[in-house]
């Protein structure tokens, strides 16, 4: 659905920006106009002093964070004022890890989108926080020895996740120290089950478990406070605001059984063994058949002179092994999925074939300024293959190759599947400077990627890029209703030029609570601007899920090279209440 795709895009871009947040920026379209954001941070109505409030760039796939994080500290009354803000789309985040957002289902920080389009002052960006609680305790084994560097997780008893399963709060990042002691702070008030060790059911977490055991760490079967592996028997810990609950101790028992997997990798045509091949392991999960790869890891082994390989320390689960993509090896191959249940597995076979080869050229459409062309040639082409069928989903493989001086490129050793090509900058300051308008294969557009089979030699690929220096600046006028707090509003550009790929990310941005938005790094062209408001997710246990239909509006907008296009859009908040809508 449109909604999930946008959310997916949102989340993907969000994670990219967070990790790339240390790049240098040359904000091309911004002038330092000195926008100002003010507000107040309070807890139960009382101002919180000394809290740092920061701005993070909210540019989706656009340019990365500048070096100087814009920030300010609250005064004795909880007021803050951030000044000298360049034009841009931001998230305002108070850094107060001891506090949490009221009603939050997990440890989280508050943030709010604010768009600065000129020398405006945006006031009343307030945050109301509550002190989080602390849960602390000690994890030991049956002999009283401390269990060290195991991660502790909280399961909310009050709230469930989207699928109605247990809502995991704070997975992975809270670990016991050398005394076995852990301490989790900023916990929203509520009821929790505290556990350590591998979760059998949650597919993502069991992936994490496989990772650590294969890397040689012992993993315990999930054990809840105080000492049970049965979650229905787990003691419930009640956390009140600002309170510390101590002695939430856990005694662990058995470690997860681990087994070995052995097999061979052969050339599929000659059946000759292939030595020195590195592998990746895909962990399969998702639903009854567990066909989807939910995790991927490179294995610390290579095949020996007889093409044989051996992986140790694999916990029970369903897996497959593939040839890892590596420079110099053009082979690709994947085993059948296999189950590790309660004994070693042997005879896993990989038949490897020459991978597919994709070659082509990157061209620039529009402004042919040699400086801009030179910048484009510094990019690399990333080929991501989402293998359909078994092992698809999360388990894609990606390779990146540089461009030759004439813009040509070649990627080899690709598995069969659907190849998606993107441009990756070598230098963070060029992030978002170009957008791909379309990808052609021998003149025909490939909006859904390029289908390849192993051994294919695909040529004639053209990646058509444009310099993305335009901006769309706009205001959304809300009608027929008021905006509920916590509503996320996204403005997105989709190409209205016939034949442009629907999947191309031509620009998206948050709309703030005043209705302002700023989409930067837009290539020149004609677009449909789509504004969508989503209600927040999550629900209390035992409540019926409320279907929330997103509210949308559309508008045409034309963007010229290097120009700012202004647009106003009306969003009818009552559109789904009308009798004509089912």
């Amino acid at each position, binding site marked *: 659905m449109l909604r999930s795709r946008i959310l997916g895009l949102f989340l993907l871009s969000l994670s990219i920006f967070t990790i790339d947040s*240390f790049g240098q920026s040359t904000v091309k379209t911004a002038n330092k106009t000195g926008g100002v954001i003010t507000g107040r941070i309070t807890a139960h109505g009382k101002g919180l002093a000394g809290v740092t409030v920061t701005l993070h760039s909210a540019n989706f796939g656009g340019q990365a964070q500048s070096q100087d994080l814009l920030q300010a500290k609250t005064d004795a009354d909880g007021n803050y004022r951030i000044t000298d803000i360049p034009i841009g789309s931001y998230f305002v985040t108070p850094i107060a890890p001891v506090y949490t957002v009221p009603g939050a289902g997990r440890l989280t920080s508050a943030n709010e989108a604010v768009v600065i389009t000129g020398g405006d002052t945006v006031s009343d960006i307030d945050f109301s926080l509550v002190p989080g609680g602390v849960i602390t305790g000690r994890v030991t084994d049956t002999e009283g020895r401390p269990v060290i*560097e195991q991660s502790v997780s909280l399961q909310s008893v009050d709230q469930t996740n989207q699928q109605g399963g247990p809502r995991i709060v704070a997975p992975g990042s809270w670990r016991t*120290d050398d005394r076995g002691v852990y301490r989790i702070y900023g916990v929203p008030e509520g009821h929790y089950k505290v556990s350590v060790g591998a979760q059998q059911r949650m597919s993502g977490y069991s992936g994490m478990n496989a990772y650590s055991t294969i890397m040689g*760490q012992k993993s315990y079967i999930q054990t809840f406070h105080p000492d049970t592996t049965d979650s229905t028997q787990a003691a419930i810990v009640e956390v009140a605001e600002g309170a510390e609950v101590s002695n939430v101790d856990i005694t662990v028992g058995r470690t997860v059984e681990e087994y070995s997997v052995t097999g061979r990798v052969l050339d599929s045509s000659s059946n000759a063994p292939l030595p020195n091949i*590195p592998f990746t392991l895909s962990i399969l999960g998702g639903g009854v058949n567990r066909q989807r790869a939910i995790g991927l*890891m*490179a294995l610390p*082994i290579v095949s020996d002179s007889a093409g044989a390989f051996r992986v140790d320390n694999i916990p029970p689960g369903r897996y497959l092994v593939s040839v890892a993509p590596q420079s110099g090896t053009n082979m690709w191959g994947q085993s059948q999925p296999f189950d590790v249940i309660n004994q070693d597995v042997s005879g896993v076979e990989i038949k490897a074939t020459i991978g597919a080869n994709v070659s082509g050229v990157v061209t620039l459409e529009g402004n042919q300024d040699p400086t801009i062309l030179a910048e484009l040639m510094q990019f690399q082409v990333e080929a991501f293959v989402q293998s359909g069928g078994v092992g698809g989903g999360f388990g894609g493989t990606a390779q990146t190759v540089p461009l030759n001086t004439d813009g040509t490129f070649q990627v080899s050793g690709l598995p069969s599947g659907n190849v998606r090509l993107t441009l990756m900058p070598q230098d963070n300051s060029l992030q978002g400077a170009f957008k791909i308008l379309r990808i052609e294969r021998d003149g025909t557009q490939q909006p859904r990627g390029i289908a390849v089979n192993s051994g294919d030699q695909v040529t004639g690929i053209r990646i058509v890029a444009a310099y993305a220096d335009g901006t769309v600046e706009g205001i959304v006028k809300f009608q027929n209703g008021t905006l509920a707090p916590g509503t996320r509003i996204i403005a997105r550009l989709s190409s209205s030029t016939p034949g442009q790929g629907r999947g191309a990310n031509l620009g998206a941005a948050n709309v703030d609570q005043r209705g302002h938005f700023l989409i930067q790094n837009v290539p020149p062209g004609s677009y449909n601007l789509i504004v969508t408001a989503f209600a927040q997710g999550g629900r209390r246990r035992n409540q019926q899920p409320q279907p929330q239909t997103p509210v949308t509006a559309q508008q045409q907008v034309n963007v010229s090279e290097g120009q700012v296009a202004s647009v106003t859009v009306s969003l009818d908040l009552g559109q789904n209440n009308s009798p004509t809508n089912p």
Partner: protein
Amino acid sequence: MNVKFSLPTLKALILAAIVFAVALSGTVLAQTTEDQNGDAAASKPNSSSITGRVVTQTSQPVTNATVYVSRMNSTSPPRPIPTDADGQFKFAGLEPGIFSVTASAPSYILPPGNPNAVAPNYYRIGDSVTITMIKGGVINGHVTDAEDKPVVAVRVRALMVRDAYGQAASGVATERLTDDRGVYRLYGLAPGTYVVSAGGPSAFSVVGGTAFGGFGPGGRAGGGGGGFGGFGNPSTALYDRDAPTFAPSSTRDTAMEVSVGAGDEVNDVNIKYRSERGHAVSGAVKSAGQGMSGYARSVVTLSRANHEGEVISFVTARGAAFVFYGVANGEYELSAETTLGTDNAEVSAPRHVIVNGNNITGITLTTNPLASISGRVTLEPSRIEQCKDKRQPRFEEILLEATRSMKKGSQDALVLPQFSTAKGAPARNGEFLLTKLAPGQYRFDTRFNAKYWYLRAITLSSPKAVTPAGKLQQTTAAQTIDVARSGIVLKFGSRVAGVNFALAEGAATLRGRVAVSENEKPPQRLFAYLVLAEKDQGENLLRYFVTTTNDDGSFTLDNIPPGLYWILTRSNVESESTLASQLRLPEGAEERAKLRHDGEAAKSSLELKPCQNVNDYQLQLNAASPRASQ
């Protein structure tokens, strides 16, 4: 083409690499399972495994230890194996080769190595290894701000500046975040002297990397300990651009030093955080060679000037650009290393940088290709009766080592010390490749576990030195160079081919003890010399041996070429040890002549026959001629 590894894997690789750096000479005992005489190629059960146990100093199993075995010259990362409840481990399915084995366990460390140890221990299949670990030390305290409020979720780092022996340490740092009370706890510290700091970037920064594959939210590398759930970690980002504040509230120059003994817990190392913005140091890495074709990864290191072990942080540059944030005023050195595949690397000479109130941009680090030496090992079996049926060394189990020789007073030691040695094992066909060597003059050594074999010669015949420009250079006189004597001179980009290590069968072994009368204690720490006695052999440097006697007066020399020798002793005092180390160098000519003269005068000759084992030699003390004062 490059490969996206999941960031947790990268973290594990970095962790493993750091573990290796610390583990260079841990307390490891190898018990070879071949029988004492090395006779007859017995096929052992489990002959493709390395087994062992990880224990504490009181022989208790270490809980949750992970053992890593790494095959020399292998392209794959170290292979991890967990230990069982009794601390036992087994690596099965190994092919012959030379392996290093180390272990890691949460909050445990390998005991600091003895600086006099000869070399890290190497193992072969069939070996059994006992690894002893000790509890690491702990440093804890709290971090407060100017208003005495706790600083929450700030990264605290302990950096070792000197190890337990007072030597400059190799830049290993441990990091964790403070909790809601501003309290931090750093554990698993090796004994040594540390400086503790809060704030500033992590030592494990990956610029321009994306977490692809891998698990869970975020996927940031490094910096363990309690932190935020959810995407990214805004709290630590808050302090990442700051110059670190050192305990108690200082810059690096006036930082308090904290001494940590094995298993110690040092409390109240408190820091009053100064919240000072650091500066940025940035630039790009360029290659002086033909440039990088295909996938290449560069690591740029910023370290404190004149303290090359004190690494502030690494940045892995994606492509060519790098940036370090949170750099305090001071003097630094920048160097870059670019890896192209497993056997090729380029490095830049260290670049001195002074930060004084401003960002520094536009630094270009130019890398030059490191050199390599290749050739083969040849085996010359013997037909003599006494040498019948003796075990041959396996090519993959022969350790070859090239080490840069330091001339007295030269500056060589300071230039790229980490590339001044290379080790390797030949492939199954006897061919070897030693790579990643910095310019300099190199000498060679071998180690192999075949009792009846000796190193007869190291030669370079018809030298085909390839210049960096790729032209073949043939010397006018196609002769055989005695590399054991002259070494090989390398420049940036040298590719020297055709080096031959000739191993011959027929070695003798000499075991014995210093001859003392009934109640006398043997003199402590003597040198025992075995020097060439045959006059017409010229100066074959491979016929000179020296070893130190043990506390009980016993000594062993093995893999000795058969022939006639003088055997004599010298007391092991400081002035002698330099001379002993020059025994096989051209500079030691005078010393060798003296030894031969003393041997002749004392008439202490010894003839060793091919494949002879002398087990009970009584070594007479020489009336050691006092050294003429210099």
